[in-house]
């Protein structure tokens, strides 16, 4: 660990764990983000590893992922059932290192909420359902989740989706993407989730017949406001990338 950590708390229940959280006490499961960051303001870790499930169940009706399941567990479970699953590719891009995939949990990945995580953009695109413990247990759409509570399960339902696409633009395959667009076709409409080097993941939707290049350009113009310029691209450039990604996934769907 690091010098500011002076206590590891093992609560008896997730409700207790939830009540213990504050700025100096944070949840600990896989720990891959925490250890990398070594935030000196954190003094205690609340170990919930034994309180969350670690399994993945997959069928065409629904994919159910326990919050404690590692990214690698998902790959190992789903790859043999459906090697075309777009989330598999997203996981490999989000976390290219198998060693870290063996450590990093789905709950931690969502809790961290990286907008440049292909996993997050995918789960936003499919509008995954989160089971969350607070004072009580409830389910909430990932798009609506405000970060409060402890995630215990992530579910999404492929049978409600007619097509899924994920496009990413990164300087290298192993590098975090500048722009990620996840899209689904469901019934008579498209839904596009946009992430990357931005502050948040944004979702746009329209009826298929209304989708056009001009709509993409308008969405890109709006979405880029959440992005940051960095050494790999200005905002003007990222707006162009968003529009191109929207166009490509839309055309593919």
């Amino acid at each position: 660990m690091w010098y500011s950590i002076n206590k590891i708390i093992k609560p008896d229940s997730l409700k207790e764990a939830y009540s213990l959280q504050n700025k100096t006490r944070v949840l600990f499961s896989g720990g891959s983000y925490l250890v990398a960051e070594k935030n000196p303001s954190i003094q205690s870790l609340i170990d919930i590893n034994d309180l969350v499930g670690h399994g993945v169940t997959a069928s065409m009706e629904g994919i159910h992922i326990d919050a404690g399941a590692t990214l690698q567990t998902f790959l190992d479970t789903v790859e043999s059932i459906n090697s075309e699953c777009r989330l598999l590719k997203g996981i490999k891009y989000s976390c290219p290192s198998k060693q870290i995939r063996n450590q990093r949990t789905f709950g931690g990945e969502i809790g961290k909420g990286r907008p440049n995580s292909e996993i997050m953009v995918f789960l936003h695109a499919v509008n995954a359902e989160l089971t969350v413990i607070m004072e009580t247990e409830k389910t909430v759409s990932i798009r609506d989740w405000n970060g409060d509570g402890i995630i215990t399960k992530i579910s999404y339902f492929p049978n409600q989706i007619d097509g899924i696409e994920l496009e990413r633009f990164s300087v290298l395959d192993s590098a975090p993407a500048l722009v990620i667009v996840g899209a689904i076709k469901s019934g008579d409409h498209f839904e596009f989730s946009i992430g990357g080097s931005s502050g948040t993941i944004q979702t746009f939707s329209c009826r298929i017949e209304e989708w056009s290049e001009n709509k993409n350009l308008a969405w890109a113009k709006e979405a880029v406001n959440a992005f940051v310029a960095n050494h790999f691209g200005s905002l003007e450039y990222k707006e162009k990338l968003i529009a191109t990604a929207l166009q490509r996934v839309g055309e593919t769907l």
Partner: protein
Amino acid sequence: MKVVGQKTRRVDGLSLAKGKAVFADDMPKKDFLFAKILHSPIAHGKIVSIDKSKALALDGIETILSHEDFEPHYFTTAGQGYPEPSPRDTSMFNKTMRFVGDRVAVVAGTSLEVVEEALALIDVKYEELPAIFDMEDSLDNETVIHPGKDGFSFLHDASRNIAANINEELGDVQKGFDESDYVFEGTYYTPYAQQCSIEPHITLTWLDENDRLIIRTATQVPYHVRRVVAEILDIPVGKIRVIKPRIGGGFGGKQEILNEEVCSAVTLDTGKPCRLEYTREEEFYAARSRHPQKVTYKIGLNKDLMMQSIDMEILQNCGGYGPHALTVMSVSASKTLALYRAPNVKVTANSVYTNLPPAGAYRGYGAPQGYFALESIMDEIAEQLNVDPIELRKKNYFREGEEVPIAKVLGEGREGFPVILQSNGIDACIDRGRELIDWDTLKNEQKSGVFRRGVGMATVAQASGIAGIDMGSVFIKMNEDGSFNLNMGATDLGTGSDTALAQIAAEVLGLPVEKIIVISSDTDTTPFDTGAYASSTTYVTGAAVKKAAEDVLSQILEQGKKILEVEEASIVNNHVVSKDGKSISYEDICIKSFYTDHQTQIQAVASKVSYDSPPPYNATFADVTVDTETGFVKVNKIVSITDSGQVINPQMSEGQAEGAIPQSLGMALSEHMIFDDKGRPINTDFENYHIFTSIDMPEIIAEFVHTDEPTGPYGAKAVAEIPINGPAPAVANAIYNACGVRIRECPITPEKVLNGINQLNI
């Protein structure tokens, strides 16, 4: 040859594969103190006060050392021959901070955690000074980064912020331009880039039973470490032993005395063993990197495409201090100007100080920067004259038997030695690469659509060690079982040089490599070597190995003849065999020599300094696809063909090329260290600094053409650095071929490409 030129298992392969304790940190550290550096948070300023009291009060903190604890003593951190050509502008702890990351203090304690806590408790007050972050603003700036002080030496002109300068001219360059039919000029930029060795800098120090200071460190230059630490801490060289275990990569970054003196100071202060390891983040801002350069080439040619004049101008950013400031840009010039023949050549170069991290040695040592410029402008010239870039190049190469005049002018910080080419396989490299990349088809095919494919190429040269400076020495002794100890100061930094050198010894002695026991890089037990840099080990130390092994072989023959009591004999299959059929094995010769007959230890020492430094050559071809809607570049294939003379170990030589190519692709497309407007580093991890990893790699074909270099051991030349010079310009040229966009600044980011495409309106 039975061993040289053959694939051979690495002498350290099994221990590495088994995860044995081979690296610096692989030892019990029960009583070790952990040390960390407190780095400057400001880019330029003076320390007004340091209050260590709160940190020292922590339980477990043993010592905190800063500039107040030492008399100022100026040295260079560059691990180079003595006297070093780099400016002596650094002291172990400075009162003036010259970059974010400069050393303020070292804290040592019983655990890493308590040391990290102590770092946060040291109260340092600074008086900030104006800072310079742009090398183009540095020259003659009113802010002087190293105002003149007693103790500094070898700075070119401190008052103008010039750490080092080169002004050389051969012939009359202006007259050459006046007489040229065509004159072309271009300016090219390369940024800060990090070596990214998998093992960061790490040093462990302790006092042995005789109170000698032992330094176990990840270094490319153990003898320079010993000399420089002795000088800084004012202790005799004989009181220091430096051990270089296996290294997890160096690439020039460990051609530096970086933390060895600090860790040693803690041990001498406390009497306790100490360990100091950089984090990845510290590697980015407090270690060393590649010098950013702005290189302008002006080239004059006649209608027959023969070059008449080359004018090269370099502006180099050496950061807050000047390790390798002179020699890196000297190599930028000397290696590039050794490729093409022109009667008039001029070099003007300035290495200037800024308040950014000091740069240093990085594989290629200035040549990658120089070749990005030269091989880009060669492509531009070919395009503008509508000639095949390969034909343009072939017309202008130096050829076998010709002298390369620049080599004599630009040595390692002083005049060099003449180079007369005795082997040059550049044509064969080009012809093979041209075939493997399918040059003629891909270059000329119609470019259309969103995804456009193109090919580019570059030809490059390097050197084989530094003539008249690099020295290798070895000691070989025979054992009773017919094995031989090969002790040498040469530093294997993961390259496999221990194996290649063992192969040379084995070839001479007529043995399998398994009979050669390599012990290297321990200043107590192995003889002097300048270290692993400048692509010198195979060529220079290899020659010393061959010389010593030949001496041993001769002794074996003589001893065998004495034991057999014959006048004439020869060596056949590890036996000394007389004409009348009597024979004695190596093993029996050694046993008898030890215990019964003409008792002696069969052994030899040899040293080698070469006044030659034959250039290896390489042709690199790149096949890329450009996404014209986004500017993203996908490298499909790299073909790298090298003339390294006689390759000693083909497998490891291929490995050198395969390791160099991703580093150069990173230079071309993704790697650059960046800083905010206060000089603070921004991308200090691999999430934000993008190196090519295995999943990013294109298809690679790395081959070698055979030449026989008469000055090299068994005809060998160097291989270590040269494959890094070509990929970046080859990719830039391939992008141009694909979409017509010429980018003169690395890295060639997608946005730059897209902006270029938009300007072309394609």
